[in-house]
Structure formats: C-alpha cells, structure tokens
C-alpha cells in the first residue's frame, strides 16, 4: 500500500514488541523510539480525522499517555500487534473528541470556524495545488465511517481484517466503506 508516511525507524531498529517490553519496565528511551517511529503516520491520521493539526498533535500526545498508562494490559498476541493497538487508541481519542465536540457543538461554533480558517495546508510550507486543496475538502466531506477506514488503511497500512476488527464491524462492511470512500473522493474531485 501507499503509505508515504510509513513508520520511520530509528537507527537501532528494534521490533515494536521488544520496545513495548522495555517500556513496560519504565524505559523511556524505548518510549521515545516508539513515538518517533509512529509520529508522522499517527499525527497525519489524526489530522485527517479531526481537520486540525494542532488538535491532532494534542490527541497524539493523549494517545501516547494512554499507551503508557495501559501498556501493562497490551496483549501482543492479539490481532495486529502494537501498531493496531496504537491506532485503536488514537481512533478512540478522535472519536471521544468528536463526541464531546458534538455535545458542545453550538457552544463551540466559533472554534469550528477557527479550525476551518486555520486551513493547515494554506499559508505554510509548500503551496498546495488547487487539486490538492480539492482533495482536502473532499476528504472532509466524507462520512466519518468511510473516512476512518480509508485513513486507517492509508496511514497505518493495517490489513483490512485488522481494521474491521478494530472498528468492530464485519470485514465486508469495512471493505464496502473503503470502496465507497474512494468512489466518493473521485466523484468530489471531478466536480
């Protein structure tokens, strides 16, 4: 798969599982290696889900704090290994955020506008082309369930069966959402 933002390994390429074992023992260097390994993919994923880079960084931090807090419960034998567990926590963080955001939507209308105006892609780094801007807007218009499957697949590179397991839906449902998301993106891009 694509995964232009595949996890970047540190010079010493220890496996996730061995680093998790070290982390359980309180080794914060192992934690740092894991954070660096998944930072790009995780922040990009959260950014696409919540539309704000600042919020994505915050959720990224919360994700790792949860990892540290619950690393004792992590079962390496469970499907997908550490990466699936990590993305599951991140997805839950994003969902929690949207749930609370939904409750306070009216109160936070102003914040939404700020988030939209923030337009992370605009005004910094390389200039996004019109086509890329179109794609960004198209992604924002995708239904949450479809967007989650598409982004999980792209940024985590997990297997579809692992994604379905993570989201708690049948494999065919996850695949159907993936297909619909891609079709919808194409359709929105052609407008």
């Amino acid at each position: 798969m694509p995964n232009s933002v595949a996890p970047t390994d540190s010079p010493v390429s220890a496996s996730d599982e061995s680093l998790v074992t070290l982390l359980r023992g309180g080794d914060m260097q192992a934690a740092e290696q894991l954070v660096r390994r998944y930072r790009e993919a995780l922040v990009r994923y959260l950014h696409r889900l919540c539309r704000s880079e600042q919020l994505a960084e915050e959720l990224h931090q919360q994700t790792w704090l949860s990892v540290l807090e619950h690393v004792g419960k992590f079962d390496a034998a469970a499907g997908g290994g550490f990466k699936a567990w990590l993305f599951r926590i991140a997805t839950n963080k994003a969902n929690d955020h949207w749930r609370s955001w939904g409750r306070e939507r009216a109160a936070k209308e102003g914040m939404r506008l700020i988030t939209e105006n923030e337009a992370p892609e605009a005004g910094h780094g390389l200039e996004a082309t019109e086509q890329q801007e179109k794609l960004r807007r198209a992604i924002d218009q995708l239904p949450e369930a479809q967007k989650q499957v598409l982004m999980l697949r792209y940024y985590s590179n997990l297997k579809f069966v692992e994604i379905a397991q993570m989201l708690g839906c049948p494999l065919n449902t996850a695949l159907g959402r993936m297909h619909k998301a891609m079709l919808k993106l194409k359709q929105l891009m052609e407008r």
Partner: protein
Amino acid sequence: MADIASQLQDHREPILLLYLANELSVDDRADLERILTSDASLRHDLESLRSLQSEVEGGLEDLDAATPLRTSQDISARRVVREMRRLQLELTSRAPVQLEASSFRAWPRWVYPLATAAAIIIIVLGLWGVGIIDLTPSLPEQDRSHMAHYDDDVPMYRDQFAQERLQRILLASFGGEELDHPVELDETEDPAALQTNG
C-alpha cells in the same frame, strides 16, 4: 472455486480489494485468477478499482508531501516523551500509597474474626470482674424441677421478702417472737407463698 465465484456475485468490490491488497488466502487468490482469465467484465472492474485506488493514494501522498506538518518531529516527540515521563512519575508516586494500603490488608483473613472474638471475651470478663454484669445462669422454669433448692414446694427461696415474713410467722407460731399485728396478705399476694409444710 465455487465459493469465491459465489462471493463475487454479492461482494465483487470487496473481493477485488482484498485481491489488490494481497489479503486473499492462497487458494482464493488462485481461484480468482482463474476466473479473471475467463471473465473480461471482472478484469475490467479490477483494473478500474486498481486505477481508482492508485489515484486516491497518489492524491493523498501528494497532499501530504505538499503540506508538511508544522511541528517538527523532534519537537513533537520530545514534548510527548516529556509528558510521558511526567505521567510515569505520577504513576510511580501513586504506587507507595497503594503498597501501604495493601500491606495493611496483608493479614490473613482468619485473624479478624478471631481478634473480634478475643476482644468481646476480654470486655465481658472485665465487666464481670467489676460486677457490672452477672454471669450466674438463670435457668428456664422447666429446668428448675431438677434442682431441690428451686423446688416449687419451697417457694420461699424465690423471694427474699416472702422468706423473711415466713421466718417471722414461724418464730411467732413457736412462741419465739410475737407478731405485733396479724398477717395480712395483699390481694395480689399468693397465699401459697405463706404456707408451710409443717
């Protein structure tokens, strides 16, 4: 073969997606490739899907390349790890409190009822020692028949007052002491209490 063929009827795109992702089992993959050689429509759908997928993935790749994250990897990672260290300190500082509590609970369970029973016994003995409570057994009525000094025929032992009055009557009847007034019974008093056997 029949299995993957029947699945293709209802779940065409999902099966093709799994094929493109190389996530079909070896047997299913072989079956599907066999069907593809003979089914032009399926081949067409597969190519459309492959094209759609690479278009979307390429678009996302370009979008990410054009929009680098504002916060650098180093800063972001350091910030996260700093917070993790802080949380770790918090978690370890919580541990001794839990340890103290657990050491208190470390006594064997049987100690608690035993200690309670011992405390009750000591308190009762203490109260008995200073005379606050009387441990003399008070037997039920039916049991008294077995004991001579509680015999109903000698009711004087039941009541000290009745006993004194009876003594005075006996002394008077044997001339030892004159009663200065006749014995009068209260309405509620049992005459049998004043009777004697002799």
